[in-house]
């Protein structure tokens, strides 16, 4: 266990946390404001990645691909909203879970049909290629740093949007008491669409940024979706601040846990057992964390809903 490894994995954990935040932010807003459980948010992320690859193959430019893919992801999100989701706002959570599960099945398969089942990749742009020396024998890829920085910038932007603008105030009000906001005459439909579209874009953006470093394949959104749900449950449904904190915690716990769990297990158990127990505990860590948080704070760390 060297300091370099610790440093690398900490940065990796932050990076995962940022990705999780981008996905979770849209998820918690949609859930908070519209009381809508969107299991299909993970495929939103996957679409972003695939669209980025497709746009790159079309244009040959990374930067153009990002802009085009972002627009395309937004359109896809709004299309889904129009076709499926808007019919589910008044349904109970079980119906929402099932219908969005159907969307997952469909889109995971559609992506396989359009692009095949083999993993795709997106090359890192020249500007962000290579690594920089952070410490003595510690070099970290530039792109990953850019990801972290961009993610933090988006987080700040979101914070400003939500707390300092009128729209943001409406969103926060909607998350606390949607009926009241509708009763006050605000066009709740349009607010919903706005929130949804923005959330879809964030998830798509996460997918675009993840494409160069993770493999783009069908079902890539599924595991991150579960993690994102754990994030918003821990953070408190409807709370962006909670999502940010919880995402970073989960990203760090999961990454560091996976790196060091086996080593820690070896201290306590014989090597053969440790090799089994280590990864198992690592996978379970975040769920244990979630169960623990829910035990003490049943509504998460920063609950927003009044009722």
């Amino acid at each position, binding site marked *: 266990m060297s300091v370099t490894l610790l440093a690398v994995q900490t940065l990796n954990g932050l990076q995962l946390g940022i990705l999780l935040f981008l996905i979770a932010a849209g998820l918690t807003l949609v859930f908070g404001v519209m009381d809508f459980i969107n299991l299909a948010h993970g495929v939103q992320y996957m679409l972003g990645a695939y669209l980025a690859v497709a746009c790159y193959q079309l244009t040959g430019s990374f930067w153009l691909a990002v802009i085009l893919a972002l627009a395309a992801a937004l359109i896809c999100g709004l299309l889904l909203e129009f076709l499926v989701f808007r019919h589910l706002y008044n349904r109970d959570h079980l*119906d929402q879970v*099932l219908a969005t599960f159907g969307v997952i099945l469909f*889109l995971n398969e559609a992506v396989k049909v359009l692009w095949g089942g083999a993993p795709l990749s997106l090359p890192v742009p020249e500007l962000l290629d290579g690594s920089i020396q952070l410490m003595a024998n510690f070099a970290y890829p530039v792109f990953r740093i850019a990801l972290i920085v961009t993610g933090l910038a988006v987080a700040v932007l979101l914070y400003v949007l939500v707390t300092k603008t009128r729209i943001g105030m409406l969103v926060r009000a909607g998350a606390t008491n949607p009926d009241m906001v509708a009763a006050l005459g605000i066009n709740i439909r349009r607010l919903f669409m706005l929130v949804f579209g923005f959330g879809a874009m964030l998830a798509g953006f996460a997918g675009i940024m993840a494409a160069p470093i993770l493999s783009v394949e069908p079902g890539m959104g599924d595991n991150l979706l579960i993690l994102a749900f*754990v994030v918003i449950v821990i953070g408190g449904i409807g709370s962006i601040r909670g999502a940010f904190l919880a995402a970073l915690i989960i990203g760090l716990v999961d990454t560091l846990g996976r790196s060091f769990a086996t080593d820690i297990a070896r201290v306590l158990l014989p090597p053969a057992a440790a090799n*089994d127990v280590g990864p198992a505990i690592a*996978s379970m860590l975040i769920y244990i964390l*979630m*169960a623990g948080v829910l035990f003490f704070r049943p509504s998460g760390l920063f609950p927003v809903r009044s009722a």
Partner: protein
Amino acid sequence: MTGPFFKNTVLPIALFAALALVPAYADVFDDRFVLLFFTRILVFAIVAISLDFILGLGAMVSFGHAAYIGFGAYAVAILSEHDIWDAWISFPLAMAAGGLFALVTGAISLKTRGVYFIMITLAFGQMAYFTATSLSAYGGDDGLTMWGRSELFGTGLFTGDASFYYLVFGVLAGAYLLLRTFAASRFGRVLKGAKQSEPRLEAMGIDPYRYRLAAYVIAGMIASVAGALMANQAEFVSPAYMSWHRSGELIVMVILGGLGSLHGAILGTIAFMVLEEVLSGYSEHWRLVFGPLLILVVLYGRGGLMGLISGQIGRKSRGEADQ
């Protein structure tokens, strides 16, 4: 002819009668595939009715129910690795393992509500899944093949195609009758009442928690028995038995049939698996059709198949209450 008597008595009898005839059909038409296919369907049906018991009756949306299949299956498989094949050892053990897991996870999960409950049951299901993938001695991610089937006092009950089918059918019938009795009992009444208005039940002096926990454990134990049967049917176990996709599919089976009637869940399972089989015969991309189909069912098929049968699509009937 769609009144409660038809729905609650004639229909299930007809259903079970039809299912009892499958081996005869397979014999006459020399169709082994149908027999094996329906054996598999019935095993899933057992899990489905256990889920309908807590979900349909008690409104507990468990997104981790597939974990119990794993408990039962792995109990049988692991014991077989150590050369223990007796069903009267492995099956009770499977039930005990599943029941204990249900007791512990249920005690924690049932303190939560709504989406938190869904999430925490999902989390526990994932924990079971990841534990199974880490059991390298028992196959880990790749799963474990069983070199034979369980034995019951030296009879070939588990090995013969038809006899195994009847075994599974018997377990399904038994579980169905048991759960149906529970549902009609005072205990079931509390569950159904709590689903409609928890404040009212508390004001009557009943804390629904204990009743829900009991139901949750019962469901877990029944699903574990199904898991033990599944291990025998496939002669193979793997962590995939416990994936959250599988838990989602189970919920779909229950919903497809219409919540709460138990035999509806059996119908839903049959419909789901037949559909899956037919569609995948046409194309490996059958999910392209299945996904939207599921969405349509959710949006427009309120009440599932049972709702269709009673002519209740979209609306609750007036006048006489159900059951």
